[in-house]
């Protein structure tokens, strides 16, 4: 419907083009080029610490994993508590594939399917301001893993906690190929208040969200301090 398109733009210009067209185009170019962040809410503490506090306030579980062995042990524990009959679906991510998976752990490296109960993926980053995980769609981290299972477990490197979404935008802009199909900011498990304004977890997405924060030397102290599990 190019007719609708042209009419819409013509009507807009009739109302807006009181200013010089070249000036308006320059205004737009300069606004886009600057990509100026707005006022940033002050963080109460160090970003990693703030992230942990906010994530837990949003009903996410947080566990520290210092080594690959810790990580496997944490997953075994979660799998045992969730459902022994089913497998753990792991994102087809190089870093996850390289982990020392024990032979008796039912692990499948693929994207999520209809009956998967427990999925593991890797966050690109964490956002301290809101305690959110950042998940990017892609070959190694398909989006379905974040939304389909009952229990979503996500690995986050402690030194990948950014203060604000604005820090993420700066990073993503520098990536070749632009934004991935989907950028997800996930803050706690799925929830609804549509029945009598009563908060209920587990609406359509995961009922549980566990963040496994792997320590990195730079932020070792914070990662230790904020761990509850």
């Amino acid at each position, binding site marked *: *419907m190019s007719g*609708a398109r042209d*009419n*819409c*733009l013509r*009507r*807009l*210009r*009739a*109302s*807006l083009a009181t*200013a010089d067209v070249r000036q*308006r*185009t320059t*205004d*737009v170019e300069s*606004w*886009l080029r600057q990509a100026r*962040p*707005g*006022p*940033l*809410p002050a963080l109460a503490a160090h970003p990693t610490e703030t992230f942990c506090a906010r994530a837990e306030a*949003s009903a996410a579980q947080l566990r520290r994993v210092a080594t690959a062995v810790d990580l496997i042990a944490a997953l075994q524990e979660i799998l045992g508590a969730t459902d022994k009959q089913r497998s753990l679906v792991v994102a087809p991510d190089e870093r996850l594939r390289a982990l020392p998976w024990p032979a008796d752990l039912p692990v499948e490296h693929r994207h999520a399917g*209809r009956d998967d109960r427990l999925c593991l993926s890797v966050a690109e980053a964490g956002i301290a*301001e809101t305690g*959110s995980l950042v998940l990017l*769609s892609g*070959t190694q981290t*398909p*989006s*379905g893993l974040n939304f*389909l299972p009952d229990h979503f477990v996500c690995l986050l490197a402690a030194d990948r906690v950014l203060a604000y*979404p604005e820090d993420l*935008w700066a990073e993503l802009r520098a990536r070749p190929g*632009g*934004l*991935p*199909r*989907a*950028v*997800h*900011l*996930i*803050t*706690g*498990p*799925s*929830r*609804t*208040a*549509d*029945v*009598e*304004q*009563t908060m*209920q977890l587990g*609406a*359509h*997405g995961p009922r549980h969200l566990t963040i496994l924060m792997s320590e990195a030397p730079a932020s070792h102290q914070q990662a230790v301090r904020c761990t509850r599990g």
Partner: protein
Amino acid sequence: MMPRVRSFKASAARALADTQLQTALARARGGFVDKRAKAVAALPEFEALRRRGREIKDHSLAHLDLYLERFEQAVTASGGEVHWAATPAEARDIVLGICRETGARRVTKGKSMVGEEIAINPALEAAGVEVVETDLGEYIIQLGQEPPSHIIAPAVHKTRGQIAELFRDHHPLDPQRSLESVASIVDEARAVLRERFLAADLGITGANFLIAETGSVVLVTNEGNGDLTACLPRTHLVLASIEKIVPTLEDASVLLRLLGRSATGQAATAYTSWYTGPKRPDDPDGPEYFHVVLLDNGRTNLLDGPFRDMLRCIRCGACINHCPVYGAVGGHAYGWIYPGPMGAVLTPLLLGLDEAAVLPEASTLCGRCEEVCPMGIPLPDLLRELRFRGFTARVTPRRSRLLVRAWASLVRRPWLYRLVTAIAARLLHLLGRSRGSLRRLPLGAGWTAARDLPAPAGRTFFAEQARREKTGP
């Protein structure tokens, strides 16, 4: 839905007498207000964000043509397609056309007010396409065949018992199974809708923001239904109105900080997603097709004049939650899809004053809506402007116009005004002398039906002031 705005008065009277509705409204009222107040108090930067948010929207609207073109280019570059619709009918045709082309028979839908505005569900059903709402609140009212009564909490007017009853009527349920608790109701909906998500050919979502720079669509939900709708089917179709555009990712972040807090008191909702185009060649999941339908529906005409301010609205619902009129009668009385103060402004602008002149009258102009609006929209001023236009165009009822004209001729003559008010004050004082208040007011029975009028002191303010100036207090 077909608008039923004209019957506002009758609908409001019915709503006031509906005890179930009053129970539901009473429960919702405090919750929204308290949560917002707490979230705003916890963020010292809120006012600064509000100023910046307003600046971003004003800039976007002043350059809307250019940003829409940018957005279209960016969507196309990412492999998606943008469609332009001047009217709801054109938008419906575009959606039905995409369903036909892709052979879609089963559609899941995230919450979209533009979807309501263009009445997409009946159009899809008439074309033999099965459509299911996946936001729990929207799903509940779809089962009840009702319009939403709130823009962010569409089933806020329903009690738990009413919802359980709807599920028993529409789901094959064991009669023994309890649907007493909120958890059991949510679980039942989760199980039923999960199958729909997995079977859908096409997913329709709305958009909270469109990003001109990247061609992204920002989607905010708590349930995750929007993401399952956007990620699982072969086609993701986005319905959005043209004023949803903002220039950059940073601009959207400013508005998101205002949106969550103003709507539900959340610093961030559980899921905030940026969707840009269809799946990339190597992606294991995601939709193959990505369409964005841009709806005008009269918005371009609003840019010129006082109502441009209304296009800053980010649909948070704060004005609705703080409105004493909405709190008393709920959303259905407003007769279309946008209730409360934002609805009382937007509905006449979209449907015409002929249809909806009654809504701007349904306000006390108390000003709370403007106070809490994160985008600083002068809602009371816009309501007054619409009243004025309704009066001038003679679409307000004859009786109201007569009374307004009588009032005008009174207040324009100070001597007459003082005389009439002095007589009235004296008369009412005498009438209410014994009790100090009046149980019934001549010509004001509607007002005194629910409360007494304190009797005036007998003198007008002017008379009292004149006396004091002469003799001292």
